[in-house]
């Protein structure tokens, strides 16, 4: 079975930042969007897009002390905080701006897929985020492009109005 991936349907996002707050709460035991591993772009007139880490691994190659490794179980790139020297090269390397330095500890922080059970996915009220096998993700994407708002695991339509 193929490894699951984290994917998004930004069309449905209402920008509530629940994913952001759950991430900071689970990982750091506090509420602080600046310490989250997922970020939501809110832009006008009405753009809300969750920015997620796609585990591409560019940060891993950029790390001068090899403090990052791929978790074989989840395929996520994980930082060894003990080793991290806060040099910030991984932040420079990240093309999506989802890898940041923690404003409190100074260490690099990034999505580790919560060990295979992402909290952001569990709490997203509009099913914007989902954690499925790649081909299932592709199928859902085709449906989204074709039919607008569809629901995953729910009977009623979720999120954007019928026109979208």
């Amino acid at each position, binding site marked *: 079975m193929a490894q699951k991936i984290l994917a998004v349907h930004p069309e449905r996002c209402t920008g509530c930042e629940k994913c952001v707050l759950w991430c900071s*709460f689970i990982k*750091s035991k506090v509420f602080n969007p600046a310490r989250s591993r997922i970020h939501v772009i809110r832009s006008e007139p*009405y753009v809300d897009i969750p920015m997620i880490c796609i585990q591409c691994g560019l940060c891993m190659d950029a790390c001068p002390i090899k403090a990052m490794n791929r978790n074989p179980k989840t395929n996520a790139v994980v930082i060894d905080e003990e080793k991290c020297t806060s040099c910030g090269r991984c932040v420079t390397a990240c093309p999506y701006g989802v890898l940041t330095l923690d404003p409190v500890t100074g260490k690099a922080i990034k999505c580790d897929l919560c060990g295979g059970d992402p909290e952001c996915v569990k709490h997203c009220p509009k099913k914007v985020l989902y954690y499925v096998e790649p081909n299932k993700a592709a199928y859902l994407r085709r449906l989204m492009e074709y039919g607008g708002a569809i629901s995953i695991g729910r009977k009623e339509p979720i999120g954007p109005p019928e026109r979208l």
Partner: protein
Amino acid sequence: MVLGGFAGTILRINLKNKKIIKEPLKEDQARKYLGGPGLATKILFDELKPGVDPLGPENKLILTAGVMAGTLCEGGGSWQAVTKSPLTGLWAAARSGGFFGPEMKYAGYDMIILEGRAEKPCYLWVCNDLVEIRDAGDAWGKPVPEAEAIIKEDLGEYQARLAIVGPAGEKLVRFAAIMNDLCRAAGRCGVGAVMGSKNVKAVAVRGTKDIKVNDPETCRKALIEIEKAVRNNPLYALYAYEGTPAYTGSLNAFGALPTWHDRSGYFDRWENVSVEKLRRNYLVKARACQACSYGCERYSEIKSGPYRSPPMGGPEYETIDLMGPYLRIDNLEAITRASYLCNIYGMDTISTGYMIAFAVECFEKGLITLKETEGMRLSWGDPEVLVDLTEKIATRQGIGDLLAEGVVRVAEKLGKNAMDLALHVKGLEQPGHSPRAIKEMALQYGTCNRGACHIRYHWVGNPSMFKATSGMEAYGLPDPSNISPLDESKEKAKIVVVCQNCGNVHEALGTCLFHTSSPNGETGLTIKRFAILLSALTGWEINDQELVKAGERLFNLERAFNIREGVRRKDDIIAKRWRTEKLLNGPTEGAVVENYERMLDWYYELRGWDSEGVPRKSKLLELELDEVATHLENSGISLKE
């Protein structure tokens, strides 16, 4: 022990001498008044002398977020502006959603107190420990979206969240709003005019600090339970898929949709302003405030035609009613355009819509003439009048300059019998819930501390109309299943007292009331769930009864503020039309509030107030408001035992 939930600091900014003081939040005070908004009322009571001019430098404007703001509690995107209102001259608090409140707490502040008046137009920049008073420059005079862009450019910080006033606030329109996130408004009571009077264009905040949690594991469990309950709430579908405009249809079917300057509770062309029409034709997106599962905010766009308006939040239910059926207008495009104008100029859509209706009726009765309107005929059902007057009020041009003063001042100026036509309580204009169709709403309008208000503190329209209890049975709410909305019984007084006490809890804790309304006690954010979450966040051992008690304490504190300003029984009496004229057509035809004074007597009795509406000394002592009682007595107000 960590005191979680709170940011822990109060920021006090004196605009005159540019002094910036950071005071630690006192834990005992925070607990007694349930944090931010409640504590702000206490600060206002302590620091404002009675009789100060709301638009003068002595008035203070407090921007504050409750303990739940910025946490994952549903509806935690709330913040409030607490001040003395230029519309009513009394205590006022206006709530808004969005992201400003949480950001203020991430910057490390539970409240920002603005004192004095700046010499030149300025804006404030609060970024963690950095606090600056900066020149407003080009932003002054600009509509909200433009001004926000200018300020963000000036700061070079695009992640900043702004609470900002538009031209209406600068021009001291007495019902101007403070806007945040472009279309979220702390709308009622004219808090925007207070900010404008201080020469402050905006407060920009950005923060990267923690909101700590005392007991993360209990907190996590409580949050999951709340999330589940909210998503199982039968109202979830309503707010998530339709938003507040859905109430247009349901209230109309009930005969409680104020129409034609509240002569009727039923609008025959309601389908033209229904949620279906809005959704099919103009809706572009649903958006949410921070940490909200619903996402009830509706973005609408009118792409072409005379009422073209770019995508912007709204219109909400209240806007649709006050700018639609209330004026007998069934043109949703014009309503959306007027709502857009209110957003960019920063005005309360309820009061704006009301003032236009009042002007039309005065024109009809000959109290306003063609000379004053500069040749414009004001008539019912004319969308041109709506859009034109909205713009004129915001910029104070022509007749707009008069209407911007609010209904009481306009009626006084017009003289004759204009005051009989004014539908307000304590100077605050009527919102979109008919007090004659739902009698507890009449009592709520009369007794709410900020005037005719449908939303502070709980959805009082709910219990007898929707047969909903929202879990308030435990605190004395009578079973609504056998109570008709049209009853004027003692039960109605009881409903209002309980709803006001319970509602004050979520207002003070800093969440949105949409999560607390629910047809039964099992779903939604109940007071019990608040108590569990609050205990986990702060480490206090607090239970639901204590919370409700604190809610009652706050209500009496607000009342004490108003008592000091001279409010008595006479100010709790609702408008003449509601007491004497019958509703014209629809399901509630013929309804009128007959026994208002008797309901008020029952209400005072249940509240522990004397027949003039002054809290008894024993009541204040029971609520641990000893110093408030002493203060009132020292100011020459005699309290009955």
